[in-house]
């Protein structure tokens, strides 16, 4: 499992550094040079993207296991290690993060208000995300987790939209309340293991008693579940997304929500397999409720971002259900769904963001007939909606197929119900598409020009990602299951 090839260039730290260095550079640029700031941030984002792509290419999934390991002692007395590594589960997440960051930075190109702080905070946020994904040490996972959470507050409260301060405060407190369960759980495991290491793999070798596993897993599930918008802890998702500015929603819904599921998978299920088995029914239940509930609640929304927020709830429900099955297919599907949903929802928010920038409204009844005035821009949204419906040959279809296959096998009732979620999602996605883009062209938006080629690029990138992984799921599934197959043996 832990193939410790210590040798070689610390690629992971370098990827982390791309964001931190970008952050520092931005801090030292005078705020009025917005153009320069944007260029710098795009440069560092693309550097990260390139490195992640290289990582993806260089990862040897035939060998599997942990690769590109960097590991040395950080705090001796507590056994904290600077321990980064890549395996099949976090590799797609890294790639996802870099893609979303890159497109997000590009999407916000027209930002004019307090540009410097915006990009600085965004890079801080993403540094946290990278950190969580690459780190294999509980201490660092938690540190990066919090680092990735608290920039949300200023990002939403300064650059946000409707009820931004309420949304920002709610979201931040909500999510950090989650970490109020995570830290004790981590410390609990650490203490139970004798209190001399936070190294994930060393802890994994220590067998925790079933009771400890149940306790710790429940705490971790609650803590991370809040971020993964597990029902009933999902209400921050719509509110927060409505409030947040475009790129932030992209990163938040696209990547940050995945941190929750990733945490459950990486810490909870790795260290507390028996706990996971014990609570799997709860997970399946909440996941299924999330799928149905999110879709149904989304039906009644009038705010575009609310709709997407609820669709995220529904899609993350699929992830939860997949994890709950504790089977190869289920977890493959869940991880794949994390990736697919990340890309998809990023596309959603970027296209909604464009519409909002132009029309200054997200309220569906006020919109309508946009396809006439901005065909390209609306086609992006429609594409995302189709991906959200789970149309085949788009990435999320495969994820749903795998998850549902596993679910029907393990939890037949939940699986069948989840399948009916497919109808609902179709219903509400198409409803939104119809009300927003179809129908008579709205004289209010006559004058609006369509999206420019330059701004279309990030959306096109996201679209092509969805298609690519829909047509060639092998590319990602081989990587994922190289880690998942050994992973499920412990259940």
């Amino acid at each position, binding site marked *: 499992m832990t193939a410790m090839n210590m040798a070689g260039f610390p690629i992971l730290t370098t990827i982390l550094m791309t964001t931190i260095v970008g952050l520092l550079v931005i801090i030292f640029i005078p705020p009025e040079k917005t153009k320069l700031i944007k260029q710098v941030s795009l440069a560092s984002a693309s550097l990260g993207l390139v490195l992640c792509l290289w990582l993806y290419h260089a990862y040897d999934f035939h060998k599997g296991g942990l690769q590109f390991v960097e590991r040395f002692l950080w705090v001796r007395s507590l056994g904290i290690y600077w321990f980064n590594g890549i395996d099949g589960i976090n590799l797609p997440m890294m790639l996802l993060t870099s893609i979303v960051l890159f497109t997000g930075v590009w999407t916000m190109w027209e930002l004019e208000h307090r540009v410097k702080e915006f990009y600085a905070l965004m890079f801080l946020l993403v540094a946290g995300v990278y950190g969580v994904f690459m780190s294999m040490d509980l201490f660092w996972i938690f540190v990066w987790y919090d680092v990735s959470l608290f920039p949300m507050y200023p990002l939403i409260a300064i650059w946000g939209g409707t009820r931004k301060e309420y949304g920002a405060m*709610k979201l931040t407190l909500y999510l950090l309340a989650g970490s109020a369960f995570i830290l004790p759980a981590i410390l609990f495991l650490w203490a139970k293991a004798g209190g001399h290491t936070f190294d994930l793999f060393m802890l994994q070798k220590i067998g925790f008693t079933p009771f400890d596993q149940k306790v710790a897993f429940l705490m971790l599930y609650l803590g991370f579940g809040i971020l993964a918008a597990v029902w009933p802890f999902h209400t921050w998702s719509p509110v927060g997304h409505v409030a947040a500015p475009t790129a932030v929603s992209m990163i938040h819904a696209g990547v940050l929500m995945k941190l929750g599921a990733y945490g459950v998978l990486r810490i909870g299920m790795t260290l507390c397999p028996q706990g996971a088995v014990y609570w799997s029914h709860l997970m399946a239940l909440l996941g299924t409720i999330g799928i149905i509930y999110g879709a149904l609640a989304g039906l009644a929304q009038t705010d575009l971002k609310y709709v997407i927020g609820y669709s995220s709830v529904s899609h993350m429900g699929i992830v939860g259900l997949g994890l709950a099955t504790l089977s190869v297919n289920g977890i493959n599907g869940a991880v794949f769904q994390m990736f697919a949903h990340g890309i998809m929802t990023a596309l959603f928010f970027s296209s909604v963001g464009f519409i909002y920038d132009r029309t200054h409204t997200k309220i569906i009844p006020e919109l309508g007939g946009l396809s006439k005035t901005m065909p390209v821009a609306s086609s992006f949204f429609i594409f995302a909606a189709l991906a959200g419906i789970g149309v085949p040959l788009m990435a999320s279809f495969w994820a749903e197929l*795998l998850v549902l*296959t596993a679910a*029907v096998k393990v939890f037949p009732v939940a699986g069948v119900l989840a399948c009916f979620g497919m109808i609902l999602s179709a219903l509400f996605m198409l409803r939104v598409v*119809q009300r927003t883009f179809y129908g008579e062209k709205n004289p209010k938006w006559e004058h609006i020009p369509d999206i420019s080629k330059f701004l279309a690029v990030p959306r096109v990138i996201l679209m092509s990602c969805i298609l690519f992984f829909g047509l060639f799921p092998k590319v990602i*599934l081989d990587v994922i299951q190289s880690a998942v197959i050994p992973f499920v043996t412990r259940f």
Partner: protein
Amino acid sequence: MGALFRDPVLFATVLGTNLPFFSMAVILLFTRSKPTVSSRISVGSIAVSAICAISLLARLFSAPPLQYQTLWFCSGKLNIVFGYYLDPLSLLMLTIVGIIACLVQIYSLGYMAGDPGYSRYYAFQSLFAWAMMNMVIAGSMLQLFIFWEMVGLASYFLIGFYYEKWSASQAGKKAFVMNRVGDVGFFLGLILLLIGFGNLDIPTLNHAAVSHGISQGLITTSALLIFCGVIGKSAQFPLLTWLPDAMEGPTPVSALLHSATMVAAGVYMFSRIFPFFSASPQAMAVALAIGAVTMILSSTMAMVTYDLKQVWAYSTVSQLGYMVMALAAGGYFAAVFHLTTHAGFKALLFLCSGIFIHEFHTNDMRIIGKQGGRKLKIPMTCITIGALALSGVFPFSGFFSKEAILTVLYAQPNKIWYAAGLFGAVLTAYYSFRLIFHLLFPKDGIEEKHHHGEHEAGSHEHEEGHQGFVFWAMAIPVMILAGVSVVLGFFEHGLEHFIMRSLPIPEELARHAVPGVHAAAHALSEGAQRVHEPNGSLLTILGVSAGLLGIAVAWFEYGRQGASRKGFLSYFPAIWKLFDLRWFLDIFYRKGLDTLVYAGLTSLFVRNDRRIIDGGIDGICIFTEGSGRLFSFLQSGMLQFNLVLMVLVAGAAVLYFVI
């Protein structure tokens, strides 16, 4: 990769099926603004595909089924393969799709001329062609499902093509969602098979089913679930109401998707895994019943509408019902044959109606008749030919296929199905000729005066229309199709021997003859039987006379001089209303959706989110702050109160220890 170029068959398959995709991509990405270029690209690519299809048919006419496979991906024990399965059935269907799609696209050159969304139209046409062809030659059920969904997607876009019309987008949504309802069943069935059997490869599945490789229970459940997919896609009862609405799309679209090919996909899929189905008598029985109900219901609906396209839509549904019945009764060949002929003449009917609609800018048969529909010679003759074929009059193709089906139904132990089939035949003939007579002999003749100006304009249009590219672009495909529907019937036997090879051969079945397989066995021998059926001639007479009866009634009411032109149903307004409102199915769905989903669950959940969950969270916050205010009273400015507090706590601690 090398194999692709070394093997001409594979090359033709890949090229023919995927060319339209590239044309779509090119159109969407580059030539949105250049309609003519887009149309050329699209038509060219579909023509190439059609040629590929025909050549494949020719090359593999007498070859055994071919199968290409490559691993798509694997997850755990699950191996998902991507593959092609070229057997007579798929080849035939491929050819049908290729030819009709090609004809329709040519027709559209005329019909859609000058439409703002010209490029978009052709993009979606190509998308459809790509998806449909891939679905036809799919090697595994999963792959079939995938492209099945893509076909649905294309139909969604094409129905909602005039998206600024609310009703159009509504219809598109309705079609997609209703199909989804069926597809979920389909999907579940596939998942069950994946779990229970682990392989969705079509030939494997069929063999396993007939050779008892799968447990009976699993077959029945999954077969029933998969049949939901058929119900959705082929607009069977109870999901049949989306198809008439789908007529919101442009007429060529209706001709291609919603009569000839896409809606036939359900029947195609059914026949694709026919042996699998036939291994489960229960499933077959259900299918038979549903087919019958669908056929009768939709025919009745067709009897009361005055909308050209609606009539053909309903008749499509009923003909699909026929096919499903045939399959369920074991008439494998009969169904496929009827599918073929129906594709021909129904496309013909739609395209002809399209010409009328294009000419008179209305769907109402009465108005078209009044304004001199019959003046358009070519479409008028062609539509009559189509109607004759539809009502199964010798020597048109419909006669042969319908007769085949009736024979199969007759072979059923329970004769009620046969009666239903005959009754359906009567109704079919009635409504189609009701339409024809409306066009030919409009009520109190053609309004000369009013029509005159019209006629000037109309004839004027004709004049420049007749030489005009537009007219001929529409006329030529129509004539071709008319020719096809005249001659196709005589190829029955050739087709039969060709098609039957795509089933597991009889002796193999005989070797493991299991209770479930009788239907299949019957189906296989049926072809041979039918010829020397004891009273085959009687059946033929019955079938034909049914058609003629219907025509006669229509003539009596609409055709002859001084006919009432009201239709006997108008004497029973209640029934008229029932038929006109599609047996209240739509209203039922609407109400159900509104009350159960929108008014019920959705609003409940939204309120729950707002009140209970969010309210709870905010409540906690308010409570926290409130308790803050409360505690702040401890910090009253009074020094001694605070001192008392201090001392009390210290004292309490002391007491706690001392005691």
